[in-house]
């Protein structure tokens, strides 16, 4: 079922393209030696280049170029060995030079693809049009003073990758899946931390609507949306606004809009006259960026295993369902943790325990996987203690909870609390006798043919044994005695 919105004139299809601004992970800025760290005191990470003092010249940072190339390679995109920087001219208080150095006609990375997965398990390939390098602007604070805006230039000149998708997305769900997948790939590559709250990943959302089978209609651009949830909301709100306009006999004007999450609506941002009149021209301060093919190949050779490949490998090598493998590769640290647990053990069991009780425990104790109180080695040890019948699965769950709370070693917890599994058949038989003696009526019913009471007896025996009975032996003993 494809996503449509119903209007008074019938159903409408939504067309979405995303421009993602991803802040490059680097020590210093794209064209200056000032630091990029987040959260520094205002204007302390600013060079004269960033503040556009007269006569200052930009010198490009090799690491930022490498990050853009790595990202391009990770998106299976074409790398342009010759690219160029242009000036994008506009007037704003947090842009001291009056232009942003960007790449317009000749970006560093050309067409690529991102494969997204939807909730029904279907996959879809989304085209990436291009990726280019550009400078970030400074930061404006509008809420500190009644009549003034405050400007901090620490962010001015930090390298951004603008990653532009084709208008291939057709629903808020697809837009969300695209952003999540892109973020995962960027994090695997180590080229952007993907942190939308700190603004290191921001999205401009292009939205239009159309009747089925029509060519594209006019689009509006919703600027600077800073969470995946808001992107999804903005798509729906903007599409509904456009549908209402068309159905009232109006037309949609191409313009830049802002999404207001508190009101759940978009509003016009700039007068149309000035928008998109950027008067691009080649930056005379910068020669063309020419990349050595061997250098690009050396970057390709060092790429990490990416999520799609890792997912296929985990599923194949550890015999786990493709869905589970998808959960485990969402973050590289999770995948690494899983492999440390699963190596040399039952991969399926390891996956079930991680996705189930381990994640639940992290949630309950408010930890992330990075600061998990239970190490991969400790979780592995717990699985070993189950495998060698020291404890059964039910007790293991209790032990894992204690491990989450205290960080203690599983064997130590088992010894200290006397949780070792009872495999002594004499003790098990005694427990079975106790249960049968206490439930003469149930016993009679069972012998009269009510066979599903078998489970009841096993449960009661386990209860008498405080959960420590070896399940296989308990089953066997109950069957024998009945």
């Amino acid at each position, binding site marked *: 079922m494809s996503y449509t919105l119903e209007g008074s004139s019938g159903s409408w299809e939504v067309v979405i393209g995303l421009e993602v601004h991803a802040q490059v992970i680097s020590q210093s800025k794209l064209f200056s*030696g000032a630091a990029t760290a987040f959260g520094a005191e205002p204007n302390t990470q600013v060079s004269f280049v960033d503040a556009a003092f007269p006569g200052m010249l930009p*010198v490009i940072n090799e690491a930022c170029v490498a990050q853009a190339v790595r990202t391009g390679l990770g998106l299976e995109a074409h790398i342009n060995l010759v690219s160029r920087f242009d000036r994008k001219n506009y007037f704003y208080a947090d842009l001291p030079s009056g232009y942003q150095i960007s790449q317009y006609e000749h970006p560093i990375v050309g067409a690529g693809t991102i494969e997204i997965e939807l909730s029904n398990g279907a996959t879809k390939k989304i085209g990436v049009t291009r990726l280019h390098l550009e400078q970030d602007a400074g930061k404006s604070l509008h809420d500190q*003073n009644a009549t003034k*805006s405050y400007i*901090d230039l620490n962010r001015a000149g930090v390298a951004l990758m603008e990653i532009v998708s084709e208008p291939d997305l057709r629903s808020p769900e697809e837009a969300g899946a695209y952003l999540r997948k892109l973020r995962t790939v960027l994090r695997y590559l180590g080229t952007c931390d993907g942190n939308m709250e700190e603004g290191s990943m921001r999205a401009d959302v292009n939205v239009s609507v159309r009747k089925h089978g029509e060519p594209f209609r006019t689009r509006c651009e919703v600027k600077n949306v800073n969470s995946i949830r808001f992107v999804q909301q903005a798509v729906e709100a903007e599409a509904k606004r456009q549908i209402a306009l068309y159905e009232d006999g109006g037309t949609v004007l191409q313009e830049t809009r802002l999404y207001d999450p508190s009101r759940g609506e978009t509003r016009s941002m700039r007068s149309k006259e000035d928008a998109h009149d950027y008067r691009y021209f080649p930056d005379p301060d910068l*020669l063309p*960026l020419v990349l050595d093919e061997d250098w690009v190949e050396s970057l390709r050779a060092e790429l990490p295993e990416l999520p799609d490949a890792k997912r296929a490998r985990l599923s194949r090598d550890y015999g786990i369902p493709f869905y589970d493998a998808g959960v485990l590769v969402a973050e590289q640290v999770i995948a690494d943790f899983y492999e440390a647990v699963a190596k040399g053990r039952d991969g399926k069991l390891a996956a079930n325990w991680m996705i189930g009780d381990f994640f639940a425990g992290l949630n309950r104790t408010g930890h992330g996987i990075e600061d998990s109180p239970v190490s991969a080695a400790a979780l592995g040890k717990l699985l070993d203690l189950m495998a060698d019948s020291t404890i059964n699965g039910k007790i293991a769950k209790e032990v894992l909870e204690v491990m989450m709370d205290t960080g203690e070693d599983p064997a130590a917890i088992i010894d200290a609390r006397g949780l070792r599994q009872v495999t002594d058949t004499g003790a098990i038989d005694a427990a079975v006798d106790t249960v049968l003696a206490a439930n003469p009526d149930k016993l009679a019913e069972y012998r009269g043919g009510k066979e599903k009471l078998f489970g009841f007896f096993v449960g009661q025996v386990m209860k008498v044994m405080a959960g420590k009975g070896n399940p296989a032996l308990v089953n066997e003993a109950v069957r024998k005695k009945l």
Partner: protein
Amino acid sequence: MSLDPATVRRIARLARIRLEEGEVARLQGELNGILGWIEQLSEVDVEGVAPLTGGAQIALRMRADAVTDGGQAEKILANAPDRAGEFFAVPKVVE
């Protein structure tokens, strides 16, 4: 190519240059003169000639990724017409 008065006003506004109404006609003449002069370049046949980006046939030089600058907020703010603490202060920009 010829600029009309509306285009002259528009260029001035985009560049944030204040233009008195009396100056428009003079600037229109000057700009049209400059454009006409530049237009002579189109007489040159450049069919099949790759764009030349500079006199020296060299590519962009790259620098290593190291923090070598910053920590000079006072110098950065020295010429600011207005400031608030370590911030630049500008007339309120409302979106």
